[in-house]
């Protein structure tokens, strides 16, 4: 039922852009990323002065910008985008309208997921200006491959955050609770392998694989690793599935 999925998507986009949520989050993200881009740029230009001629400044800059910075900003900003997805509908009673309309739960969940993903893409788009700047004004030229794989990585990474956030939002009527849980749980999944020194042991390897950030680091080096893509896609599918089950279970819980 593409039509009902689109109806939910459309409504959700309208909600983002009719309320200050989208503008505040996007503006905050762009301001912070612009400030840090300048700081990184200055730092790397200074560092490169004393370096040998094979020092790859542009790649370093892109990795700091698209890798470290974006992932941290996402961790803070995305919970604000997803916390209201279902919690608000439940609180307002509009969940009752959706659930008594001829529309499947999976259409509701995917419609909302795609809306958040679109807002995320809108957020990322202007940052391409900084990347184009690096591309035009650097020597050696920044490898395009790194740019593309890093953007693919951040998109998958953000998608995972959105999927987790929408699941947690479906569990409660309280947006703040949903937001804090999303932030906390994602941070746990991020730092899950911090205590393990070696990746020699099975335990170490498992934790290393489970961490949401490790796969992303490969992408920022210009490597599109299948295991990374599979990891993020399965992460997203898993939490979208859980969200559908969670919405469905609302019917069985005491209202």
């Amino acid at each position: 039922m593409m039509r009902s999925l689109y109806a939910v998507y459309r409504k959700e986009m309208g909600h983002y852009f009719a309320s200050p949520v989208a503008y505040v989050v996007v503006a905050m993200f762009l301001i912070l990323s612009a400030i840090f881009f300048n700081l990184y740029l200055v730092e790397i230009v200074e560092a490169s002065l004393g370096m040998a001629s094979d020092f790859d400044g542009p790649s370093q800059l892109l990795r700091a910008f698209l890798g470290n910075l974006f992932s941290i900003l996402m961790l803070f900003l995305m919970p604000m985008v997803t916390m209201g997805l279902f919690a608000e509908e439940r609180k307002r009673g509009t969940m009752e309208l959706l659930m008594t309309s001829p529309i499947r739960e999976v259409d509701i969940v995917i419609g909302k997921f795609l809306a958040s993903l679109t807002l995320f893409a809108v957020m990322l788009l202007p940052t391409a200006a900084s990347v184009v700047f690096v591309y035009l004004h650097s020597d050696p030229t920044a490898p395009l491959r790194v740019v593309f794989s890093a953007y693919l990585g951040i998109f998958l990474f953000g998608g995972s955050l959105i999927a987790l956030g929408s699941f947690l939002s479906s569990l409660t009527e309280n947006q703040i609770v949903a937001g804090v849980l999303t932030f906390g749980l994602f941070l746990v999944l991020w730092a899950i392998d911090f205590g393990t020194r070696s990746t020699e042991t099975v335990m170490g390897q498992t934790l290393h694989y489970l961490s949401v950030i490790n796969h992303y680091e490969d992408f920022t080096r210009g490597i599109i690793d299948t295991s990374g893509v599979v990891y993020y896609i399965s992460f997203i599918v898993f939490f979208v599935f859980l969200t559908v089950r969670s919405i469905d279970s609302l019917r069985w819980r005491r209202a």
Partner: protein
Amino acid sequence: MIEVADLTKAYGPVTAVDHVSFSVNEGEILGFLGPNGAGKTTTMRILTGFMPATSGTARIAGFDVTTDSLAVRRHIGYLPETPPLYPDMTVESYLDFVLRIKNVPGDKRRARISEAIEKTNLGDKGTELIKRLSRGYKQRVGLAQALVHDPLVIILDEPTVGLDPKQIIEVRHLIKGLAGTHTIILSTHILPEVSMTCDRVVIINKGKIVAVDTPQNLTTQLKGVQKIRVEAQAPEKPFQELLAQIPGTSSVEVSLARASGHVTATLEVASGKDVRSLVAARIIEKGWDLYELRGVSLSLEDIFLQLTTDDAAHSQASN
């Protein structure tokens, strides 16, 4: 159009709806009457597919609400207790969204929206943001939402809550106007509402159906007796004895109003004969002063109280 058989819903140890069965014919308005917490909302939520029943079946337009939920949801319009509104949408864009999720094709949406706005008297509020509307208008947008896609069955949970008296009358007219082409179930705890709008009434208490009938039949059920209220300036004992001697009297209750020193009495008399003139003549004969004498008509209220109160006799006595 709607058939409910042995419907039961238990929340853990609490049974909210207890083996409820009833049916609604096409084009009929059925009133669901009961005190708060009687199981009205739960029954409606099961009918709309919002929650499943513990046991029993319910069919709407031939489709089972549990096994054919999507088909049922295609044919119903539902106004929950709190209207499900998106505050930062305009009335028109909200109704458009509702039509989209109800699978109404694009070329029909425009006409349906203006029709619903006209029916619910939303007039010039179409481009207004819902959060800027008053409570009464919000309730009407909720109603518009339930009928905008022209469903076979419309289920309204307390549709007149939060409206002022003028709006209540408008909404009742609107609901009556929908009958015939739509089958309607509405719930309320306001008695006059039922006698004014509904073809049939289901009285429900503590999850169980206590009566199903037309409002007229329910009122005539108690027509066997007639009540008369008398107020006079008289000594209590002789006053009671005098009234007890009126032919056809089955019971007399006398009480003394401390402030005025008057005695008041309520008599239950077999109907068929108006004894009021006789009562007046006897009191004047005794030289007492008569202050009030009137027949008390038994309303749905009395029936409702009788049916839903465990100790009906006690509650009558204390009236």
